[in-house]
């Protein structure tokens, strides 16, 4: 089959590799019909995530048709059309039983590596380094899905791939970020980053009852979509005299009730601390560029919540923890418990409450995935979301 492989920093290529097959009795094999490039794939592309190996197959946003299944999969049939959560979960451990699927205790065969770095291991993730299991991803013609009986959700034929593909990651990720804010009627939520997760965070915040959602970015194309599609109130930081002052001004002097960092480890801020991060990272003295996170803490209202769907990988420098403590902030974060949210969000799509396909800006055949990565990375041609068709 054809699959997109990571071949080093800023280098991916489509190769012919062997087809996947059933390895464990709860596996299924999916023929991929649609797959997308995630913003977090760019962290891999940039070499920001450790424990990648040349030849690893990328992709954690994908859907398709079940073409084979293991002996212990009884809830799916060959031919079922399914979407696959990016986090691999066993459904049986304490964490899965509590709905914390991304903390699954049993799906990461490389758990020792994650434990050494983080103290404990989270769930395995498709195509996301050997810290998270080294599983072959879904930017491919076929993919093996471990624990397929827990990690595959049937979708109705009446909904196109474009409508349901983002149930695999970015819609639930944006939704969980908003839910983590504990939004109350009348709340104002600020979202850093108008990328795909940011767009879904804005829409989810409204679904959960926010009065105002302000979105902070400097990309005019993305801010336009944030305004027109997601109904966010835009704040272009490149044109602002100061994001924190402006947020205070727009919120009656109090700051947003909740702040969502949908940027993560590769912030492109223009403030002094952001420049400092870039220099430190360039000389290998830092792992992440957390300027959006710092700003979110500084801007947040007293007693408010900072919710972090943006991915971080290492040790963050110069985080204003005194401010967080002084204002009594709550911080919530982590990989998304996709299996928990997916059924509810599928219902929202079916009801027409939200149309995830509105953020798709580009389509490429899988064979041209390397070109698509480059375009997405450079944000050329107003690129917000790329869908690949195997």
């Amino acid at each position, binding site marked *: 089959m054809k699959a997109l492989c990571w*071949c080093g920093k800023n280098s991916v290529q489509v190769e012919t590799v*062997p087809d996947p097959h059933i390895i464990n009795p*709860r596996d299924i094999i999916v023929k991929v019909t649609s797959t997308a490039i995630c913003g977090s794939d760019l962290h891999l592309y940039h070499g920001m995530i450790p424990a990648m190996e040349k*030849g*690893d197959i990328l992709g954690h946003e994908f859907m398709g048709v079940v073409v084979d299944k293991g002996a212990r999969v009884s809830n799916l049939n060959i031919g079922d059309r399914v979407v696959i959560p990016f986090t691999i979960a066993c459904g*049986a*451990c304490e964490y899965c*039983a509590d709905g914390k699927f991304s903390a699954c205790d049993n799906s990461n*065969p490389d758990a*020792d590596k994650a434990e050494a770095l983080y103290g404990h291991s989270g769930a395995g993730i498709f195509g996301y380094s050997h810290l998270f299991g080294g599983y072959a991803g879904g930017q491919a013609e076929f993919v093996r899905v471990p624990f397929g009986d827990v990690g595959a959700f049937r979708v109705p034929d009446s909904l196109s791939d474009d409508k349901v593909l983002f149930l695999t990651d970015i819609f639930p990720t944006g939704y969980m970020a908003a839910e983590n804010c504990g939004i109350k009627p009348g709340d104002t939520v600020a979202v850093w980053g108008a990328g795909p997760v940011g767009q879904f965070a804005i829409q989810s915040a409204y679904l959960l009852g926010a009065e105002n959602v302000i979105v902070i970015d400097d990309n005019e194309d993305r801010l336009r979509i944030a305004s027109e599609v997601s109904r966010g109130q835009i704040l272009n930081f490149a044109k602002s005299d100061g994001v924190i002052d402006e947020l205070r001004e727009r919120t009656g002097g109090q700051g947003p009730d909740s702040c969502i960092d949908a940027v993560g480890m590769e912030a492109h801020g223009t403030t002094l601390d952001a420049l400092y991060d870039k220099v430190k990272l360039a000389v290998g003295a830092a792992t992440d560029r957390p300027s959006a996170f710092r700003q979110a803490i500084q801007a947040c209202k007293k007693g408010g919540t900072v919710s972090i769907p943006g991915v971080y990988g290492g040790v963050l420098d110069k985080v204003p923890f005194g401010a967080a403590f002084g204002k009594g902030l709550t911080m919530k974060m982590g990989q998304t418990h996709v299996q928990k949210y997916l059924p509810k969000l599928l219902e929202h799509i079916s009801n027409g409450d939200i149309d995830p396909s509105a953020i798709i800006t580009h389509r490429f055949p899988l064979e041209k995935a390397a070109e698509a990565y480059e375009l997405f990375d450079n944000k050329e041609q107003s690129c917000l979301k790329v869908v690949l068709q195997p």
Partner: protein
Amino acid sequence: MKGTQAEKYLDPALSVLVEEGVSAVRTFTINKPHELLFQSARDAHLFATAMRHLDAVQLVESDFELVEEVSPTKLVWASKKETEIFAYGTLEFKPAPRKDATIVRMSMKYALDRGKLAQKIDELKGDEFEDKLMTDLRNFKALMETGEIPTTEGQPMGHCGRTH
């Protein structure tokens, strides 16, 4: 004890031999009732399935026997007298605060009889082997909770222009 090498292991006179072995201890909370886990862990096949590093020390399922059993709190597996490598595994079970969950403390120890395969001691020492033991203990938990052991062995991978 039933006259296996476990007796030797516990003999203070042979403590040096134990020092030359490899061991790993790990405590897990397994999301299953402790009576069920106790019964499952009595199954030699299941025990050997989880302990995949056994291949590395040339032991198979039939080399093991249950040498101590305190129902439903403790099981001790040990390799039989005729094996050259002495392996000794203890599983202790107690109910976890969470309903229907169990705290399982697992330890595995390996040692070699003096004069037998002594040259392999160095091979068995070291972080890598201890890591394997730890992985096996984790495998036991996965097997109990999910019925399988997570793996990526056998999955496709690209070559990025490499010929091998």
